């Protein structure tokens, strides 16, 4: 109910103090997206895209994610999870509809490159509300029939977050 929010669409990092000194504010990132997007993406972005074997980011192979060593822990914990033989990273971290999938790829791809290159992200990394909604939607996409009673009784109403109880399905030891 509170910070680890069981409500799918609650902003999860609400209440987190803007830690301006230590890391760029979200606004800064957004501004970057708009003003520097083209320039930076072509510059730093491309560097990282190349360095991080960016093209492979667009594939489905989990190995491509660990082109960045910062993803190693998540790879390890995924390998130990109950899902490693039924779902790869993208099965959970990309929406299962076509448009959402490519929007998310572009968006995350950009931010990963930016974050990786500029540094200043949290360690351990913390998933953001938007991506939490993605994982929630993918759980449901695969398990819809089984979890049918958990869906909202009324359209638009909220429901419980799957990882409230199943915290470790994708990553063991969470």
């Amino acid at each position, binding site marked *: *109910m*509170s*910070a*680890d*929010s*069981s*409500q*799918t*669409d*609650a902003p999860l990092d609400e209440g987190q103090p803007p830690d301006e000194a230590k890391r760029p504010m979200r606004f800064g990132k957004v501004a970057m997206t708009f003003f520097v997007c083209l320039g930076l993406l072509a510059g730093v972005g491309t560097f990282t895209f190349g360095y991080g074997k960016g093209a492979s980011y667009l594939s489905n192979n989990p190995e491509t994610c660990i082109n960045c060593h910062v993803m190693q822990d998540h790879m390890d914990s995924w390998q130990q999870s109950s899902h490693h033989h039924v779902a790869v990273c993208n099965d959970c971290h990309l929406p299962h*509809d076509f448009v*959402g999938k490519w929007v998310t790829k572009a968006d995350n791809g950009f931010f990963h490159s930016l974050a990786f290159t500029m540094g200043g992200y949290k360690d351990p990394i913390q998933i953001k509300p*938007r991506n939490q*909604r993605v994982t929630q*939607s993918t759980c*449901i996409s695969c398990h819809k*029939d*089984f*979890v*049918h*009673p*958990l*869906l*909202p*009784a*009324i*359209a*638009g*109403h*909220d*429901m*419980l977050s799957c990882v*409230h*109880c*199943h*915290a*470790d399905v994708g990553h063991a030891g969470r």
Partner: protein
Amino acid sequence: ERKQEARTPFVRVVEVDEVSTDPKPWGLNFPQQYEDYLKTVDDEYTDYGGNHALPPSKLEEYPWLKRLFAGYAFSIEYREARGHAHMLADQEVTRRVTEVQQAGACLHCHASIIPTYRRIGMEQLGQEVTAAKLAESFNQEAVMAGFKAVSQQTYEEVHAELEKTPDGVVEAAAGDPHLGNAHPVSCIDCHDPKTMALRVTRPGFLIGIDKLANSDDPVPHLPSIAKWRKAGSKGTYDPNTDATRQELRSFVCGQCHVEYYCANKMTLTFPWSNGLKVEDLEAEWDSTTFPSENADETGEPFYDYVHKETGTKVYKAQHPEFELWSQGIHARAGVSCADCHMPYEKVGATKVSSHWVRSPMTNINKACQTCHKVSEQEIKDRVDLIQHRTSDLIDRAAAAVTEMFDAIIAAREAGASDEQLKPIRDLQRKAMWRLDFIASENSKGFHASQESARILAESIDYSRQAIAGCYQLESEPAAEPAKGDAS
């Protein structure tokens, strides 16, 4: 970023509506939940093998409770709780009801009473009452009116009203005022019959939670209250529209598993206007006065009973599970009552909430191990340790409280004046309230382990201060010499 679409409506075999207090027809629609629900008659203590004896007496288990409740109905009979299906029968037969005149408000939490409130409320509000109208909608205005209207009636009167309300099954016979049976908590008390969505129905809770929302208690575990406050605290906080689904999974229990006032001097009250901590509740009782006959006068200050051994007016705490849970790490982490007491279970190709509401310790695998990946034995041991620490402190606090009674008795016998005893009685009330708060809470400290110990520490502190206060009186010249029969 799609909003989750709604589930497809459940297939129904029969229709249920707002008078369907009998769970049987619901059971045709939802056989699994109904079957589980029926298991709440089973009980480890008493019910295996068809033996339906009453559960063990707490008064026998903890003899000091008799002294704590001296002068109050609880000293006559007080037992362990058991499954939901028993609640009405257990209330009907308790000597607290058979030997003492109780208020009709008792049924607020022991019967599926909402349609009865609605019926009486509709009459009060001059609305036409027909079986169809009664079944049509929740009609909160009427429910509230009915709740208030019966608040001055006796237990027997209100119990009789229950049978004058249709229950969705019993057919009215011409000239027979008995229109339905009385039922313990039932599907309709927690579910909207149309959508099966969770909802809260109890007036005590609706009023209480609104008071809480209007207080300045931070309640970090209830994010919808923060949201409502942020939006300007407009109108009433209505859990049925404002609360998250996860909150409702605790609110439905908070309708009954709470501290209350329930007697005939005022309507049933949940004392949440300052917050949910033990001292917040106490502060509400401290500042409450009973309504006075004469509108110009302020009424008598609130109390539950006069403690017989000492003559002090004190408060009685009852099962504050919701309040104590609110102070614990689980509430803080968003874990609801239903998560532990009604865990999901796999049934065929779907998962359902276990409606066999019971101790999670009889169902550790589903209740705890989804979140805590350690062995059952280890979970049991952790709970035992927490409960053991709490128990030890309860014993310690009980020893202090009973010594306090002796000291006050002796001081009175030695001639202490009421004025001298006033500060001591204040300490006594605080000490008893805190001990009772944790002793009457049913998790033995588990719902908020550190908070329980803190509350008991305070109880001990106040009891022993009162004792020292009595001894000091004795050595003060003001007190008359002992009358000789002092113990």
